[in-house]
């Protein structure tokens, strides 16, 4: 299979397969979670709890002030990676074109050079995250195959995208095909690895905030 055929497979059947597994998998996981139900809390809530779940979805994106100093590397790498990843995902022109093509929604792109710099920073952050995971006693202790696999699944699109953008290592067509394939692999694995946190964290934050808000606790 030549590079172009690989690219076309990635843009055609590969994407179809990945999307089917991704969408079906995500829905299945949501059913899996919600089917376990949650008992209605019969205790009298404190006033003003209505929006606490929603509020927590946003507020939990901010660092805990007492941990900021103690766990600074985790926060620094975590924020750099997540913000960088989403900028690269959402503000590179070719990516926006993909969203526009599939969903009809589009928005202005950031200059390629800026996204490029941010991507590099993101890759560095992700590399440091792996190093820190191997070095930090707690992280190393907690880590399972899933953690390392998820790391690799996330790194692959970033790195292949970066290399493709700069025409490094492999011919562009081949690297672009690998980039798209790596994203497809990420989509396929997302429902079944810890990468599912991208969706479930909103559910978790909502439940947490709702329960704490019920008690009138600060969020």
């Amino acid at each position: 299979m030549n590079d172009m055929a690989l690219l076309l497979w990635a843009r055609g059947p590969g994407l179809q397969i990945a999307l089917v597994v991704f969408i079906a998998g995500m829905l299945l996981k949501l059913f899996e979670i919600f089917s376990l139900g949650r008992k209605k809390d019969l205790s009298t809530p404190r006033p003003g709890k209505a929006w606490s779940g929603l509020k927590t979805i946003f507020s939990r994106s901010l660092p805990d002030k007492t941990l900021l100093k103690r766990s600074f590397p985790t926060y620094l790498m975590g924020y750099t990676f997540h913000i960088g990843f989403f900028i690269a995902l959402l503000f590179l022109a070719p990516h926006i074109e993909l969203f526009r093509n599939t969903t009809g929604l589009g928005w202005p792109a950031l200059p390629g050079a800026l996204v490029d710099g941010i991507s590099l920073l993101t890759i560095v952050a992700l590399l440091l995250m792996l190093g820190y995971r191997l070095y930090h006693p707690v992280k190393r202790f907690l880590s399972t195959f899933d953690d390392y696999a998820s790391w690799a699944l996330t790194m692959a699109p970033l790195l292949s995208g970066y290399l493709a953008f700069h025409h490094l290592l492999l011919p562009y067509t081949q690297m672009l095909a690998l980039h798209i394939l790596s994203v497809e692999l990420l989509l396929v694995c997302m429902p079944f690895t810890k990468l599912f946190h991208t969706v479930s964290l909103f559910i978790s934050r909502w439940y947490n905030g709702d329960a704490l808000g019920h008690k009138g606790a600060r969020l």
Partner: protein
Amino acid sequence: MSDEQSLGALLREQGISRRGFLKFCGAMASLMALPGSMVPAIAAALDKALRPSVIWLSFQECTGCTESLTRSHSPTLEGLILNAISLDYHHTLQAASGEAAEAAREAAMKQFFGKYLLIVDGSIPTKDGGVYSTIAGVSNLDMLHEAAKGAAAIVAVGTCAAFGGLPHANPNPTGAVAVSDIIRDKPIINVSGCPPIPVVITGVLAHYLTFGTLPELDDLGRPKAFYGESIHDRCYRRPFYDQGKFAKTFDDEGARNGWCLFELGCKGPTTFNACATTKWNQGTSFPIESGHGCLGCSEPNFWDAGSFYHALSTPITPVGRAAAVAAAAGIVGGAAIAMHNRHVKAAARSGHQTVTVNDLEQASGETK
């Protein structure tokens, strides 16, 4: 008919001066991306080169490649070198000659066996024994096999000959394939493009004449000198891509400002060809300069690569149906696992044994 006359002598016979020849060699060097310091060596080699015999076969094609090459005559370098070399058979150009032409082809094939260059344009239909394209009652498939036997090398001119091209596009009713799908034991140079840039054909021939070898090829069998870089890399609109400035439609402000055509479906990033530097129509312009994105015509499967007007980063097939099917599957599968989970939980609830303080101790006793 070819003879043992050198190329230089031939050209001078036609009234071309040495300066003119040198100028021609300089242009050729520039075309092949060879350094200017090599021009004297090229001139010396070409001067002494013997006229080779060339046989040109046209198969399942649109004549665009021949048109590209011959759309102007002797004053151009391309025309010159084609005239200078020995074109012993060109099916399209000699169509009127009928049996005489076929006889010439066979004579040349016999006389220069093992030495002639075989140029092929058009794809080769293979379905149903190759009946979909025949010349003088001989199928393209048979003619290619026969002509390839005595060829020193084969030049597949145009995307049809190089990769199958338009006839190969889905659903490919004639079973069209590229030359390289059929001939495996001869050196093949793919000069892809729909049509290929005429000077690229000449450049390949010039290289063969000058050095007696094939030029360096990429992994798709194309000469690196011309296909070494993507259209995107050499595009004068590249800075706009880097700045994130894109034309959104063919007549908007961005289009008028000459911004990047990526979002309008330009396939420049994955298309390797010399259009952006060599340009077309004697260096006038190339498609992007005329405001239209690159179609990717020098790449395999370019007809099946989705819309010409959708960006490279988009799916080549609509995803809506797949998404709907997936959603349905997810809901059905999800409902099944949900039912299962509820069943397990309900069983646990009904299996609940009230825990008393005595149970705590008994249980502890049991395990300790």
